[in-house]
């Protein structure tokens, strides 16, 4: 049977014969067109058109394919998310989940805007372009709320850097190549936009070898009365498309993101990767914000996944209207594009403005001033349909509710507790703890990411108060969170961190998710900020496999548990499923972007030891729970005990720590995470270029005490004369563990000297290990 019937029009248009298609045909049509709909979904489409009494055009079928993709309509995740992380009703919420970015109150007059997204599949195929356009996409999400972007963050996940070529699966690129390309892509796009890249993480694990993860986030600031929605306002509003031209790059990006990667992905899907051009984007940001500030816009939305098809539909539907689009008006990069290609292209650097007819000329003029191409392409209509014309011939007429709504599935979930099948396999107690510590510091999941950080401009805009690297110039250590001062006339600041612990989430998604959120909270609190909002980028495998969805559900429950207790919302986020190849699924990776507020940025606290003779305190309790720890990974040991979070203890600890900070009793503070106390104190010594002498007595084995990754712990440096006042701040466990001074780190545990190393040796391992590998 011939599925595609060429229409007799002066451009490329087909009728798709689904009315005569049987089930098998429907599947073939979905596969051949690349729209990626299931058999059941194709049957729903057929029924819709049967009721209309006609076949769809290729364009109509494509539009439905885009809108119904996992990436666009969250059909597998909505069911779980709405029962977990959605609808936490925090007083600071302004727009939560409902827009492209989350909007949260900053002060009486301002809101900050948060967006976090994945750009995984494009980056696995073309790391430089994939990562660059990830940045391009996330910044638009913030700008289209009317906000000035302030900072980028980018959690990245790759296979091991030293993987032998022979272990690289067919069709996969070497992790080193991917890492290098992704960093360059973020660097070249982010730096050119003039927005600092302030936080992120790089994590290496075998499970990311054939499916790396590139998550990108952006934080911005807006005046509350200048916030704008991604929706039209009234019938008659004119659609103006501004920015880059539309090309064949980025076709089927969303459907590509909604399937597993495979050997031929590069050849088949390279067209799904967009091409980025930051120098078109930079003026587009300026003009978009200027137009909004001047009150010339009714609504604004960025062109992301699904292209014009999604933008026109979603903007209109959100306001209960329809749209009429003259597709031939869209400026093209190449002339011979078929209407359906124009309709779904995800070319970069494009914005859609909804404008009152009387303001159209002024909008076009201001765009021209900035050398931004802008074109009127349609208008808003009362009827809730989307009608598309090409050369005045109608080529699409769909009910928007049907097209944009998309299916939703509560797919089967199977919950597997992997820890049940693991018995504790302790490593042999080391006889040389110094050697172990140095080895830990050089590991790629712990060592300094300076090689990455310094390639990103983290100071442009001159708002960066706490940088990603902190301490003595030239000897800096890893900051817990970056702090920015967004407003000229206020000292109030935003602290930003990103975190996830994939190994713990893998072993026990519920506890691992809680540990992840605990870490992001610890980081904010360490610098003196009150945790205020979360964004989550949930990277998982194929949701059609019940075990994967089980992990997803447990993760969402873990995140919800803490967030709801603290009454802090997930204001924005993204679900990335299908991060899975023949080699298996990635470790479940719920990346968290957490923001905190600090009343006066000049009171922010860094992690470098500040002086000699100060007292070091440990806040929290160190336990024998080594499951998922970096130490056990290194020693090839196993434990079912994934670190737990005691929620009451967490909320009291936040309160106590912030009270110590606000009483100015903390000279330095560092959260304890990967590599435990030994690594945390090493980093403080490295950054301050001052040593420490620690004496601890406890019940658990020495190596476990040093490297345990128990949650809700910090190390704090306190002036000797403030000891009493400091201790008074704490209802949670606080213990004096030592003094600062000297040029060595010495740790005495149960009267045995376990660690005695010079700061120089610690620094050498920590600072240079990654850079030496990458050049």
């Amino acid at each position: 049977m011939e599925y595609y019937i060429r229409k007799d029009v002066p451009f490329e248009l087909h009728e798709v014969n689904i009315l005569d298609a049987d089930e098998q045909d429907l599947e073939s049509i979905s596969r051949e067109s690349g729209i990626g709909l299931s058999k059941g979904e194709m049957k729903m489409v057929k029924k819709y058109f049967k009721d209309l009494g006609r076949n769809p055009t290729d364009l109509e079928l494509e539009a439905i394919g885009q809108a119904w993709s996992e990436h666009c309509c969250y059909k597998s995740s909505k069911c779980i998310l709405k029962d977990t992380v959605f609808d936490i009703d925090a007083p600071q919420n302004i727009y939560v989940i409902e827009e492209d970015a989350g909007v949260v109150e900053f002060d009486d007059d301002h809101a900050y805007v948060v967006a976090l997204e994945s750009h995984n599949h494009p980056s696995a195929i073309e790391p430089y372009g994939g990562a660059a356009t990830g940045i391009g996409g996330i910044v638009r999400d913030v700008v289209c709320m009317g906000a000035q972007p302030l900072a980028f963050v980018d959690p990245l996940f790759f296979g091991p850097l030293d993987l032998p070529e022979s272990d690289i699966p067919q069709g996969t690129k070497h992790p080193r190549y991917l890492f290098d390309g992704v960093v360059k892509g973020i660097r070249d796009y982010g730096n050119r936009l003039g927005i600092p890249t302030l936080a992120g993480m790089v994590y290496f694990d075998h499970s990311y070898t054939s499916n790396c993860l590139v998550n990108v986030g952006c934080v911005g600031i807006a005046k509350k009365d200048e916030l704008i929605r991604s929706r039209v306002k009234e019938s008659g509003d004119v659609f103006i498309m501004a920015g880059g031209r539309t090309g064949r790059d980025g076709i089927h990006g969303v459907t590509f993101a909604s399937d597993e990667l495979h050997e031929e992905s590069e050849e088949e899907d390279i067209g799904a990767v967009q091409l980025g051009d930051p120098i078109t984007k930079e003026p587009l940001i300026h003009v978009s914000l200027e137009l909004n500030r001047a009150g010339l816009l009714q609504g604004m939305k960025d062109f992301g996944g699904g292209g014009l098809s999604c933008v026109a539909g979603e903007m209109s539907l959100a306001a209960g209207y329809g749209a009429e689009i003259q597709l031939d008006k869209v400026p093209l990069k190449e002339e011979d594009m078929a209407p359906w290609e124009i309709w779904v292209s995800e070319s970069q650097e494009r914005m859609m403005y909804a404008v009152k007819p009387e303001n159209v000329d002024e909008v076009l003029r201001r765009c021209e001033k900035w050398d931004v191409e802008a074109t009127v392409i349609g208008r808003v209509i009362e009827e809730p349909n989307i009608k598309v014309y090409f050369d005045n011939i109608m080529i699409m007429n769909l009910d928007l509710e049907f097209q944009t709504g998309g299916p939703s599935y509560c797919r089967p979930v199977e919950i597997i507790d992997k820890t049940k099948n693991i018995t504790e396999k302790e490593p042999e107690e080391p006889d040389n703890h110094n050697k172990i510590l140095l080895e830990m510091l050089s590991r790629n999941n712990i060592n300094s990411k300076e090689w990455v950080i310094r390639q990103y401009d983290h100071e442009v805009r001159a708002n960066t108060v706490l940088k990603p690297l902190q301490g003595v110039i030239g000897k800096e250590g890893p900051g817990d969170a970056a702090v920015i001062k967004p407003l000229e006339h206020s000292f109030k600041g935003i602290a930003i961190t990103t975190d996830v612990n994939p190994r713990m989430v893998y072993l026990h998604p519920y506890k691992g998710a809680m540990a992840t959120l605990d870490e992001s909270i610890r980081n904010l609190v360490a610098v003196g900020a009150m945790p205020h909002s979360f964004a989550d980028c949930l990277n998982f495998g194929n949701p059609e496999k019940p075990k994967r969805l089980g992990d997803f559900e447990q993760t969402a429950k873990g995140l919800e548990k803490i967030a709801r207790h603290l009454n802090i919302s997930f204001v924005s986020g993204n679900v990335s499923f299908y991060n899975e190849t023949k080699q298996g699924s990635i470790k479940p990776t719920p990346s968290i972007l957490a923001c905190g507020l600090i009343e006066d940025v000049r009171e922010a606290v860094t992690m470098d030891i500040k002086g000699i003779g100060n007292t070091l305190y440990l806040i929290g309790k160190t336990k024998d729970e080594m499951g998922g720890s970096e130490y056990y990974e290194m020693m090839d040991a196993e434990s079912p005990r994934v670190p737990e979070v005691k929620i009451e203890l967490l909320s009291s600890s936040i309160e106590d720590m912030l009270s110590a900070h606000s009483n100015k009793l903390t000279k330095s503070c560092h959260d304890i995470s990967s590599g435990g106390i030994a690594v945390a104190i090493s980093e403080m010594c490295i950054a301050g270029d001052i040593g420490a002498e620690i004496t601890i007595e406890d019940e658990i084995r020495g190596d476990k005490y040093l490297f345990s990754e128990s949650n809700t712990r910090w190390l704090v440096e306190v002036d000797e004369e403030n000891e009493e006042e400091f201790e008074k701040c704490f209802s949670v466990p606080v213990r004096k563990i030592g003094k600062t001074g000297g040029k060595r780190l010495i740790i005495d545990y149960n009267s045995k000297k376990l660690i005695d190393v010079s700061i120089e040796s610690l620094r050498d391992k920590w600072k240079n290990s990654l850079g030496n590998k990458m050049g």
Partner: protein
Amino acid sequence: MKRENIKVAILRIEGTNCEEESYLAFKRLGADAEKIHLKQLLGNGINPDERRELEDYHMIMIPGGFSAGDYVRAGILFAARLKSAFKEQLIDFADSGKPILGVCNGFQVLVEMGFLPAFDREITDIPQAALTTNDSNKFECRPSLLSVEDNTKCVFTRKFKKGEKVLFPSAHAEGKFLVKDDDHLEKLKDDGQIVFRYTTPNGTRPGYPWNPNGSLDDIAGICNPQGNVLGLMPHPERVFYDFTDPDWTRKKRSENRGDGKLLFESVLEYVEDEF
């Protein structure tokens, strides 16, 4: 003239991206600073009320960024556009003693335009120096310790102490300063055109990363022979306040004063006195 009457033009084209903080540095000190797109000077595609003339300003700053993308040679396109339309005006501007500052990409633009080093006060069509790819072959965002080499001739450093160390952040991929031979280097020294050099905490000759790019003779910034045109790679506007210093949490602090503020104060006082 009075501070509030000093008109400072912060020039930009697409890809310029340090204009906001540069503008604020002058604004905070009471000057009448304004961000001006090149098109406002050229006059195409703008309203009459947006039209600007260079001669109405007392000072020009070309801020950092990636003008026109810097895909060719950093700064060359911005320089070409400025020169093709305003070469004579800009020469007159500089000859009249009005200050011109180029930071980072702005320094690259001034070198491409021949305004720096401008040996023997001659603005040449062919650049006499280059800011080329960093030795590390990477973008380098890191604090740079600079020693102030001149505080008499250059109108931007008069309030600094000679030999004083300041900490300005660097952030560039093409900052390696070169001239064609030793004679030209000697000329720079003889004419007192070297204003900032990279240095180390103990004042020794800096290797990488204290000299972040491999610049000849550790040169971080130079002025023209008259001292009213300055170009430097590190960013003084990023340390206008001390709480954006890279290591402010380790220092004794006073009145939020950052190391970069003095540069802007110096030049504004110069304009106050001279015009």
